[in-house]
Protein backbone atom coordinates (compact mmCIF):
# COMPACT_ATOMS: atom_id res chain seq x y z
CA UNK A 1 0.00 0.00 0.00
CA UNK A 2 1.79 3.17 -1.14
CA UNK A 3 1.87 5.89 1.49
CA UNK A 4 3.15 8.85 -0.43
CA UNK A 5 2.87 9.28 -4.17
CA UNK A 6 4.61 11.98 -6.10
CA UNK A 7 2.10 13.47 -8.51
CA UNK A 8 2.74 15.43 -11.68
CA UNK A 9 1.48 18.91 -10.99
CA UNK A 10 -0.30 20.95 -13.60
CA UNK A 11 -1.82 24.36 -14.09
CA UNK A 12 -5.17 25.54 -12.70
CA UNK A 13 -6.74 24.62 -16.05
CA UNK A 14 -6.40 20.96 -15.00
CA UNK A 15 -9.19 21.73 -12.54
CA UNK A 16 -11.57 23.05 -15.22
CA UNK A 17 -13.03 19.64 -16.09
CA UNK A 18 -13.49 18.34 -12.55
CA UNK A 19 -14.85 21.63 -11.18
CA UNK A 20 -17.31 21.89 -14.10
CA UNK A 21 -18.40 18.35 -13.42
CA UNK A 22 -18.86 18.74 -9.64
CA UNK A 23 -20.80 21.96 -10.13
CA UNK A 24 -23.17 20.03 -12.40
CA UNK A 25 -23.30 17.21 -9.82
CA UNK A 26 -24.10 19.76 -7.11
CA UNK A 27 -27.34 20.65 -8.89
CA UNK A 28 -28.47 17.04 -8.41
CA UNK A 29 -28.12 17.18 -4.61
CA UNK A 30 -31.34 17.11 -2.61
CA UNK A 31 -32.49 20.70 -1.94
CA UNK A 32 -32.71 21.77 1.72
CA UNK A 33 -36.47 22.37 1.62
CA UNK A 34 -36.90 18.70 0.70
CA UNK A 35 -35.66 17.62 4.15
CA UNK A 36 -38.61 19.45 5.67
CA UNK A 37 -40.97 17.51 3.42
CA UNK A 38 -39.17 14.24 4.14
CA UNK A 39 -39.79 14.76 7.85
CA UNK A 40 -43.51 14.51 7.13
CA UNK A 41 -43.17 11.38 4.99
CA UNK A 42 -43.22 7.71 5.94
CA UNK A 43 -40.17 5.56 5.17
CA UNK A 44 -41.70 3.93 2.00
CA UNK A 45 -42.54 7.42 0.70
CA UNK A 46 -38.95 8.57 1.35
CA UNK A 47 -37.68 5.49 -0.50
CA UNK A 48 -39.96 6.27 -3.45
CA UNK A 49 -38.75 9.88 -3.50
CA UNK A 50 -35.11 8.75 -3.40
CA UNK A 51 -35.82 6.47 -6.37
CA UNK A 52 -36.48 9.61 -8.39
CA UNK A 53 -33.07 11.02 -7.49
CA UNK A 54 -29.45 9.95 -7.99
CA UNK A 55 -29.99 7.06 -5.52
CA UNK A 56 -32.21 5.17 -7.98
CA UNK A 57 -29.59 2.72 -9.19
CA UNK A 58 -28.49 1.64 -5.70
CA UNK A 59 -32.06 1.39 -4.37
CA UNK A 60 -33.16 -0.68 -7.38
CA UNK A 61 -30.25 -3.07 -7.04
CA UNK A 62 -30.66 -3.53 -3.28
CA UNK A 63 -34.47 -3.59 -3.11
CA UNK A 64 -34.60 -7.36 -3.61
CA UNK A 65 -32.55 -8.06 -0.45
CA UNK A 66 -33.56 -5.22 1.86
CA UNK A 67 -36.52 -3.03 2.69
CA UNK A 68 -37.54 -0.07 4.85
CA UNK A 69 -34.93 1.95 6.71
CA UNK A 70 -32.29 -0.73 6.09
CA UNK A 71 -32.66 -0.34 2.33
CA UNK A 72 -32.24 3.45 2.52
CA UNK A 73 -29.21 3.13 4.80
CA UNK A 74 -27.35 0.68 2.58
CA UNK A 75 -28.34 2.40 -0.66
CA UNK A 76 -27.16 5.80 0.57
CA UNK A 77 -23.79 4.44 1.71
CA UNK A 78 -23.35 2.53 -1.56
CA UNK A 79 -24.21 5.70 -3.51
CA UNK A 80 -21.74 7.73 -1.43
CA UNK A 81 -18.93 5.26 -2.16
CA UNK A 82 -19.83 5.15 -5.89
CA UNK A 83 -19.94 8.95 -6.12
CA UNK A 84 -16.56 9.41 -4.44
CA UNK A 85 -15.00 6.67 -6.56
CA UNK A 86 -16.38 8.43 -9.63
CA UNK A 87 -14.66 11.67 -8.56
CA UNK A 88 -11.35 9.80 -8.36
CA UNK A 89 -11.98 8.13 -11.71
CA UNK A 90 -12.74 11.31 -13.63
CA UNK A 91 -9.90 13.41 -12.24
CA UNK A 92 -6.20 13.41 -13.11
CA UNK A 93 -2.86 14.60 -11.69
CA UNK A 94 -3.07 17.12 -8.86
CA UNK A 95 -6.88 17.08 -8.40
CA UNK A 96 -6.88 13.28 -8.18
CA UNK A 97 -3.98 13.24 -5.72
CA UNK A 98 -5.66 15.80 -3.46
CA UNK A 99 -9.10 14.13 -3.67
CA UNK A 100 -7.56 10.79 -2.69
CA UNK A 101 -5.71 12.37 0.23
CA UNK A 102 -8.99 13.83 1.47
CA UNK A 103 -10.98 10.63 0.86
CA UNK A 104 -8.56 8.59 2.96
CA UNK A 105 -10.87 9.56 5.82
CA UNK A 106 -13.12 6.77 4.57
CA UNK A 107 -10.26 4.31 5.00
CA UNK A 108 -10.11 5.46 8.63
CA UNK A 109 -13.91 5.16 8.87
CA UNK A 110 -13.79 1.61 7.47
CA UNK A 111 -10.97 0.51 9.79
CA UNK A 112 -12.88 1.96 12.77
CA UNK A 113 -16.11 0.23 11.65
CA UNK A 114 -14.35 -3.14 11.33
CA UNK A 115 -12.66 -2.74 14.73
CA UNK A 116 -15.93 -1.73 16.38
CA UNK A 117 -17.76 -4.60 14.68
CA UNK A 118 -15.17 -7.15 15.80
CA UNK A 119 -15.09 -5.63 19.30
CA UNK A 120 -18.84 -6.08 19.71
CA UNK A 121 -18.94 -9.44 17.93
CA UNK A 122 -20.89 -8.30 14.84
CA UNK A 123 -21.15 -10.67 11.88
CA UNK A 124 -19.24 -10.19 8.64
CA UNK A 125 -22.44 -9.23 6.79
CA UNK A 126 -23.36 -6.61 9.38
CA UNK A 127 -19.91 -5.02 9.19
CA UNK A 128 -19.88 -5.03 5.39
CA UNK A 129 -23.14 -3.08 5.29
CA UNK A 130 -21.58 -0.11 7.07
CA UNK A 131 -18.40 0.11 5.02
CA UNK A 132 -17.88 2.90 2.51
CA UNK A 133 -15.05 1.81 0.20
CA UNK A 134 -14.35 5.32 -1.08
CA UNK A 135 -10.70 5.64 -0.06
CA UNK A 136 -7.60 3.73 -1.04
CA UNK A 137 -8.44 0.41 0.64
CA UNK A 138 -10.40 -1.61 -1.93
CA UNK A 139 -13.63 -3.50 -1.17
CA UNK A 140 -11.91 -6.93 -1.48
CA UNK A 141 -9.29 -6.04 1.13
CA UNK A 142 -11.97 -4.70 3.47
CA UNK A 143 -14.05 -7.83 2.96
CA UNK A 144 -11.01 -9.90 3.90
CA UNK A 145 -10.65 -7.86 7.09
CA UNK A 146 -14.33 -8.25 7.96
CA UNK A 147 -13.94 -12.05 7.60
CA UNK A 148 -11.16 -12.20 10.20
CA UNK A 149 -12.09 -13.65 13.57
CA UNK A 150 -10.25 -11.42 16.03
CA UNK A 151 -9.27 -7.76 16.32
CA UNK A 152 -5.60 -8.77 16.63
CA UNK A 153 -5.77 -10.41 13.19
CA UNK A 154 -7.23 -7.24 11.70
CA UNK A 155 -4.45 -5.17 13.27
CA UNK A 156 -1.84 -7.65 12.00
CA UNK A 157 -3.14 -7.20 8.42
CA UNK A 158 -1.92 -3.59 8.54
CA UNK A 159 1.62 -4.55 9.52
CA UNK A 160 4.08 -2.48 7.50
CA UNK A 161 1.68 0.39 6.86
CA UNK A 162 1.27 3.76 8.54
CA UNK A 163 -1.86 2.52 10.29
CA UNK A 164 -0.05 -0.21 12.21
CA UNK A 165 1.50 2.03 14.86
CA UNK A 166 -1.84 3.68 15.64
CA UNK A 167 -3.63 0.32 15.71
CA UNK A 168 -1.14 -1.25 18.13
CA UNK A 169 -2.34 1.23 20.77
CA UNK A 170 -5.33 -1.06 21.25
CA UNK A 171 -5.13 -2.40 24.79
CA UNK A 172 -7.88 -5.01 24.46
CA UNK A 173 -10.46 -2.98 26.41
CA UNK A 174 -10.92 0.51 24.96
CA UNK A 175 -11.31 1.39 21.28
CA UNK A 176 -11.44 5.15 21.86
CA UNK A 177 -7.65 5.53 22.14
CA UNK A 178 -7.15 3.70 18.81
CA UNK A 179 -9.90 5.74 17.16
CA UNK A 180 -8.35 8.97 18.36
CA UNK A 181 -4.91 7.84 17.17
CA UNK A 182 -6.35 6.99 13.73
CA UNK A 183 -7.96 10.44 13.44
CA UNK A 184 -4.68 12.10 14.33
CA UNK A 185 -2.85 9.88 11.86
CA UNK A 186 -5.21 10.91 9.05
CA UNK A 187 -4.52 14.61 9.52
CA UNK A 188 -0.81 14.04 10.14
CA UNK A 189 -0.49 12.05 6.90
CA UNK A 190 -2.38 14.68 4.96
CA UNK A 191 -0.17 17.45 6.28
CA UNK A 192 2.92 15.42 5.37
CA UNK A 193 1.79 14.32 1.90
CA UNK A 194 -0.01 17.48 0.80
CA UNK A 195 2.03 20.05 2.72
CA UNK A 196 5.25 18.83 1.11
CA UNK A 197 4.10 19.58 -2.43
CA UNK A 198 4.07 23.38 -2.15
CA UNK A 199 1.41 23.77 -4.85
CA UNK A 200 -1.42 26.29 -4.64
CA UNK A 201 -4.04 23.51 -4.69
CA UNK A 202 -2.42 21.80 -1.70
CA UNK A 203 -2.37 25.05 0.25
CA UNK A 204 -6.10 25.52 -0.37
CA UNK A 205 -6.88 21.95 0.70
CA UNK A 206 -4.92 22.45 3.92
CA UNK A 207 -6.71 25.76 4.53
CA UNK A 208 -10.06 23.96 4.49
CA UNK A 209 -8.78 20.97 6.45
CA UNK A 210 -7.44 23.26 9.21
CA UNK A 211 -10.91 24.73 9.53
CA UNK A 212 -12.38 21.24 9.66
CA UNK A 213 -9.97 20.25 12.46
CA UNK A 214 -11.00 23.38 14.41
CA UNK A 215 -14.67 22.45 14.07
CA UNK A 216 -13.98 18.85 15.16
CA UNK A 217 -12.01 20.07 18.16
CA UNK A 218 -14.76 22.52 18.99
CA UNK A 219 -17.34 19.72 19.07
CA UNK A 220 -14.99 17.67 21.29
CA UNK A 221 -14.67 20.68 23.62
CA UNK A 222 -18.45 21.17 23.76
CA UNK A 223 -18.95 17.51 24.58
CA UNK A 224 -16.17 17.14 27.14
CA UNK A 225 -16.49 20.54 28.83
CA UNK A 226 -20.19 19.87 29.28
CA UNK A 227 -19.39 16.50 30.85
CA UNK A 228 -16.87 18.19 33.16
CA UNK A 229 -13.87 16.18 32.03
CA UNK A 230 -10.33 17.12 33.13
CA UNK A 231 -8.40 19.59 30.94
CA UNK A 232 -5.44 17.27 30.32
CA UNK A 233 -7.71 14.45 29.08
CA UNK A 234 -9.53 16.85 26.75
CA UNK A 235 -6.26 18.23 25.39
CA UNK A 236 -5.12 14.69 24.59
CA UNK A 237 -8.25 14.21 22.50
CA UNK A 238 -7.84 17.41 20.48
CA UNK A 239 -6.49 16.90 16.97
CA UNK A 240 -3.35 18.96 16.30
CA UNK A 241 -3.01 21.02 13.11
CA UNK A 242 -6.04 23.31 13.40
CA UNK A 243 -5.66 27.06 12.97
CA UNK A 244 -7.12 27.74 16.42
CA UNK A 245 -5.50 24.76 18.15
CA UNK A 246 -3.67 26.73 20.86
CA UNK A 247 -6.68 28.91 21.65
CA UNK A 248 -9.04 25.94 21.76
CA UNK A 249 -6.73 23.84 23.94
CA UNK A 250 -6.63 26.70 26.45
CA UNK A 251 -10.42 26.43 26.66
CA UNK A 252 -10.23 22.76 27.72
CA UNK A 253 -11.55 22.11 31.19
CA UNK A 254 -13.39 25.44 31.51
CA UNK A 255 -16.91 25.54 32.92
CA UNK A 256 -19.56 25.43 30.17
CA UNK A 257 -20.64 29.07 30.58
CA UNK A 258 -17.09 30.39 30.64
CA UNK A 259 -16.25 28.28 27.57
CA UNK A 260 -19.28 29.56 25.61
CA UNK A 261 -18.49 33.19 26.53
CA UNK A 262 -14.92 32.66 25.27
CA UNK A 263 -16.22 31.62 21.85
CA UNK A 264 -17.91 34.95 21.18
CA UNK A 265 -16.21 36.83 18.38
CA UNK A 266 -14.98 33.77 16.48
CA UNK A 267 -16.22 33.42 12.87
CA UNK A 268 -18.34 30.37 13.73
CA UNK A 269 -20.04 32.09 16.66
CA UNK A 270 -22.98 33.47 14.64
CA UNK A 271 -23.79 29.91 13.49
CA UNK A 272 -24.12 28.54 17.03
CA UNK A 273 -24.78 31.60 19.23
CA UNK A 274 -28.48 30.93 19.97
CA UNK A 275 -28.12 27.18 20.61
CA UNK A 276 -24.89 27.49 22.62
CA UNK A 277 -26.11 30.38 24.78
CA UNK A 278 -29.24 28.55 25.85
CA UNK A 279 -27.21 25.42 26.63
CA UNK A 280 -28.70 23.36 23.79
CA UNK A 281 -27.68 19.77 23.07
CA UNK A 282 -24.24 19.11 21.61
CA UNK A 283 -25.76 17.28 18.62
CA UNK A 284 -27.68 20.44 17.70
CA UNK A 285 -24.50 22.50 17.97
CA UNK A 286 -22.68 19.87 15.93
CA UNK A 287 -25.34 20.09 13.18
CA UNK A 288 -25.00 23.89 13.13
CA UNK A 289 -21.21 23.70 12.94
CA UNK A 290 -21.43 21.17 10.15
CA UNK A 291 -23.70 23.53 8.19
CA UNK A 292 -21.20 26.32 8.85
CA UNK A 293 -18.39 24.13 7.47
CA UNK A 294 -20.35 23.33 4.28
CA UNK A 295 -21.08 27.04 3.76
CA UNK A 296 -17.42 27.87 4.40
CA UNK A 297 -16.23 25.30 1.82
CA UNK A 298 -18.48 26.79 -0.89
CA UNK A 299 -17.73 30.38 0.15
CA UNK A 300 -13.96 30.00 -0.21
CA UNK A 301 -14.44 28.06 -3.45
CA UNK A 302 -15.94 31.23 -4.94
CA UNK A 303 -12.58 32.96 -4.44
CA UNK A 304 -10.75 30.08 -6.13
CA UNK A 305 -13.16 28.72 -8.77
CA UNK A 306 -10.52 26.65 -10.58
CA UNK A 307 -9.12 24.78 -7.60
CA UNK A 308 -9.72 21.78 -5.37
CA UNK A 309 -12.19 23.77 -3.25
CA UNK A 310 -15.39 23.28 -5.34
CA UNK A 311 -14.61 19.54 -5.35
CA UNK A 312 -14.16 19.60 -1.56
CA UNK A 313 -17.38 21.59 -1.24
CA UNK A 314 -19.19 18.88 -3.19
CA UNK A 315 -17.60 16.06 -1.19
CA UNK A 316 -18.66 17.69 2.09
CA UNK A 317 -22.18 18.52 0.77
CA UNK A 318 -22.68 14.95 -0.46
CA UNK A 319 -21.51 13.49 2.84
CA UNK A 320 -23.89 15.84 4.68
CA UNK A 321 -26.79 14.88 2.39
CA UNK A 322 -26.27 11.17 3.05
CA UNK A 323 -25.99 11.69 6.78
CA UNK A 324 -29.17 13.84 6.74
CA UNK A 325 -31.17 11.16 4.91
CA UNK A 326 -29.89 8.52 7.32
CA UNK A 327 -30.74 10.66 10.34
CA UNK A 328 -34.29 11.20 9.09
CA UNK A 329 -34.84 7.53 8.25
CA UNK A 330 -33.25 6.22 11.46
CA UNK A 331 -35.14 8.79 13.53
CA UNK A 332 -38.42 7.81 11.90
CA UNK A 333 -37.73 4.14 12.49
CA UNK A 334 -36.94 4.81 16.16
CA UNK A 335 -40.17 6.80 16.48
CA UNK A 336 -38.51 10.15 17.26
CA UNK A 337 -40.58 13.30 16.87
CA UNK A 338 -40.19 15.39 13.70
CA UNK A 339 -38.94 18.35 15.79
CA UNK A 340 -36.16 16.30 17.34
CA UNK A 341 -35.01 14.93 13.99
CA UNK A 342 -35.16 18.41 12.46
CA UNK A 343 -32.71 19.68 15.07
CA UNK A 344 -30.19 17.07 14.00
CA UNK A 345 -30.55 17.64 10.26
CA UNK A 346 -27.84 19.86 8.81
CA UNK A 347 -29.48 22.54 6.68
Amino acid at each position, binding site marked *: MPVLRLPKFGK*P*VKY*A*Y*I*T*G*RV*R*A*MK*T*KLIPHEMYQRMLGMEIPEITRYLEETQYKEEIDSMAKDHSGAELVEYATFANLANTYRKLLR*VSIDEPQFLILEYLRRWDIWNIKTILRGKFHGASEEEIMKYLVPAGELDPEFLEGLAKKEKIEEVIQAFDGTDYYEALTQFDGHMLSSVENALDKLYYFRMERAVGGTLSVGSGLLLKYVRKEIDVKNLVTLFRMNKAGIEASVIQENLIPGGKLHDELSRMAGQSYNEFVRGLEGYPFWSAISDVAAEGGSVSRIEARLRAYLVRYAWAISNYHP*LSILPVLGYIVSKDTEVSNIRKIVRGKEAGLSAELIEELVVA
Partner: protein
Amino acid sequence: MVVENIVDGGILYGLIAVGAGLATGLAGIGAGVGEQGIGAAVVGVVAEEPGFLGKGLFLMLLPETLIIFGLAVSLILMFAWTPFA
Protein backbone atom coordinates in the same frame (compact mmCIF):
# COMPACT_ATOMS: atom_id res chain seq x y z
CA MET B 1 19.31 51.31 -51.59
CA VAL B 2 17.65 51.17 -48.20
CA VAL B 3 16.41 54.71 -48.66
CA GLU B 4 14.96 53.73 -52.02
CA ASN B 5 13.14 50.79 -50.48
CA ILE B 6 11.60 52.94 -47.77
CA VAL B 7 10.49 55.44 -50.35
CA ASP B 8 9.02 52.60 -52.38
CA GLY B 9 7.33 51.34 -49.29
CA GLY B 10 9.14 47.98 -49.53
CA ILE B 11 10.17 47.54 -45.86
CA LEU B 12 7.06 49.28 -44.61
CA TYR B 13 4.86 46.92 -46.62
CA GLY B 14 6.78 44.04 -45.13
CA LEU B 15 6.31 45.35 -41.59
CA ILE B 16 2.60 45.92 -42.24
CA ALA B 17 2.29 42.31 -43.41
CA VAL B 18 4.12 41.08 -40.28
CA GLY B 19 1.84 43.25 -38.09
CA ALA B 20 -1.24 41.87 -39.82
CA GLY B 21 -0.01 38.32 -39.24
CA LEU B 22 0.73 39.01 -35.57
CA ALA B 23 -2.70 40.58 -35.06
CA THR B 24 -4.52 37.44 -36.20
CA GLY B 25 -1.96 34.99 -34.84
CA LEU B 26 -1.71 36.39 -31.31
CA ALA B 27 -5.49 36.82 -31.13
CA GLY B 28 -5.79 33.15 -32.11
CA ILE B 29 -3.33 32.06 -29.39
CA GLY B 30 -5.19 34.18 -26.81
CA ALA B 31 -8.54 32.69 -27.79
CA GLY B 32 -7.03 29.21 -27.60
CA VAL B 33 -5.72 29.82 -24.08
CA GLY B 34 -9.17 31.07 -23.05
CA GLU B 35 -10.95 28.19 -24.70
CA GLN B 36 -8.91 25.40 -23.16
CA GLY B 37 -10.35 26.02 -19.70
CA ILE B 38 -13.87 26.73 -20.89
CA GLY B 39 -13.83 23.69 -23.18
CA ALA B 40 -12.69 21.37 -20.40
CA ALA B 41 -15.32 22.76 -18.01
CA VAL B 42 -18.07 22.45 -20.64
CA VAL B 43 -17.14 18.82 -21.33
CA GLY B 44 -17.28 18.19 -17.57
CA VAL B 45 -20.74 19.73 -17.25
CA VAL B 46 -22.09 18.03 -20.39
CA ALA B 47 -20.90 14.64 -19.02
CA GLU B 48 -23.36 15.19 -16.15
CA GLU B 49 -26.01 17.26 -17.92
CA PRO B 50 -26.24 16.49 -21.68
CA GLY B 51 -28.87 19.23 -22.05
CA PHE B 52 -26.19 21.85 -21.37
CA LEU B 53 -24.46 21.20 -24.71
CA GLY B 54 -26.04 24.15 -26.57
CA LYS B 55 -25.30 26.72 -23.88
CA GLY B 56 -21.88 25.19 -23.30
CA LEU B 57 -20.91 25.48 -26.96
CA PHE B 58 -22.04 29.11 -26.99
CA LEU B 59 -19.88 29.90 -23.94
CA MET B 60 -16.98 28.01 -25.44
CA LEU B 61 -17.13 30.03 -28.63
CA LEU B 62 -17.14 33.43 -26.86
CA PRO B 63 -13.32 33.83 -26.94
CA GLU B 64 -13.50 33.26 -30.74
CA THR B 65 -14.78 36.83 -31.04
CA LEU B 66 -11.27 37.98 -30.13
CA ILE B 67 -9.97 36.45 -33.34
CA ILE B 68 -12.51 38.45 -35.32
CA PHE B 69 -11.06 41.65 -33.84
CA GLY B 70 -7.57 40.48 -34.75
CA LEU B 71 -8.71 39.51 -38.25
CA ALA B 72 -10.40 42.90 -38.72
CA VAL B 73 -7.17 44.70 -37.78
CA SER B 74 -5.24 42.47 -40.19
CA LEU B 75 -7.63 43.18 -43.05
CA ILE B 76 -7.51 46.93 -42.39
CA LEU B 77 -3.71 46.82 -42.34
CA MET B 78 -3.47 44.78 -45.51
CA PHE B 79 -6.15 46.34 -47.70
CA ALA B 80 -7.68 49.52 -46.26
CA TRP B 81 -4.66 51.36 -44.80
CA THR B 82 -1.97 51.74 -47.43
CA PRO B 83 0.03 54.95 -46.80
CA PHE B 84 2.01 54.66 -50.03
CA ALA B 85 -0.85 53.74 -52.29
